């Protein structure tokens, strides 16, 4: 019996390993954290709502255009020498049951994000909709987080959801307004930044694995 060999992974294990490696360094969390905290902070600045929306769109554009380059730079610098580089398969087969669920939830969250408030405003009026803003924001952030958790399978995301829901419940009780909504998004950003920062720090502390000379 060969006991020196590790267990041969299943194909599902191998796919999971690529996803784990992709999320292990927390860089994706940091990007979402910057976006969410930025959106939350804008809410506290006394500006015309249209200017706020323009600033947010600008933030998304900067992260959208520069984000992949920043992530690649950070991964090459911190992650690849420690965890290795792996490019997930581009010719993935039809999504599994869980994959389809993640896709459906993503679409639902996007629809909720863009149309939920509008529908709520039409249904109960502007003043009343502001009252529910913190909880709506928390639910949106949680939905995004849970979907990421389903896709990544990282226990880190469940900690985010728990922290965010706890904070949103407090905000809903003490501060049910648009500013409360900003506070929830700011908190979500901080939670992601802290979680992502810790993950990046843990990755950075792993030993660098050298390849044999070419």
């Amino acid at each position, binding site marked *: 019996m060969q006991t020196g060999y590790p267990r041969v992974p299943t194909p599902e294990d191998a796919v999971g*390993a690529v996803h784990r490696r992709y999320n292990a360094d927390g860089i994706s969390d940091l990007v979402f954290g910057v976006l969410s905290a930025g959106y939350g902070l804008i809410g506290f600045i006394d500006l015309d709502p249209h200017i706020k929306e323009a600033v947010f769109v600008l933030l998304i554009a900067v992260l959208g255009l520069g984000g992949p380059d920043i992530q690649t730079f950070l991964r090459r610098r911190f992650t*690849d020498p420690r965890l290795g580089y792996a490019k997930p398969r581009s010719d993935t087969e039809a999504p599994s049951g869980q994959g389809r669920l993640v896709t459906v939830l993503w679409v639902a969250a996007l629809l909720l994000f863009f149309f939920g408030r509008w529908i709520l405003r039409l249904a109960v009026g502007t003043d009343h909709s502001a009252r529910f803003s913190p909880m709506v924001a928390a639910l949106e952030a949680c939905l995004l987080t849970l979907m990421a958790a389903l896709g990544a399978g990282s226990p880190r995301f469940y900690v985010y959801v728990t922290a965010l829901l706890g904070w949103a419940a407090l905000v809903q009780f003490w501060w049910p307004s648009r500013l409360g909504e900003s506070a929830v998004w700011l908190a979500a950003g901080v939670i992601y930044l802290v979680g992502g920062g810790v993950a990046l720090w843990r990755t950075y502390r792993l030993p660098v694995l*050298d*390849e044999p000379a070419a």
Partner: protein
Amino acid sequence: MTSFPRQAAGLDRMIHEPARLTLMVLLSAVDEADFVYLLRESGLTKGNLGSHLTRLEEAGYVEIEKGFVGKVPRTVVRLTAAGQRAFTSYRTMLRKIAAHLG
């Protein structure tokens, strides 16, 4: 119909070896991966990993590209079309054998 012992004998020995099977499974889940990733995920030693990759390359199952990122050497490995076919055929055969065994 091929008998069970013949099917078992027909298993691709290049892939059937546990370390190389581990590498084939890992590589089948990615477009490409580097030496460090395979080292970490397979649990093999550097020497073992290097020698098994060389065997797989000689069999035409993987493609190895050696390069540098800055001054650091980086070896990128990917399955070839022949490797992909061989792995699929190996899995099919293994399933048939498992069905025979119940």
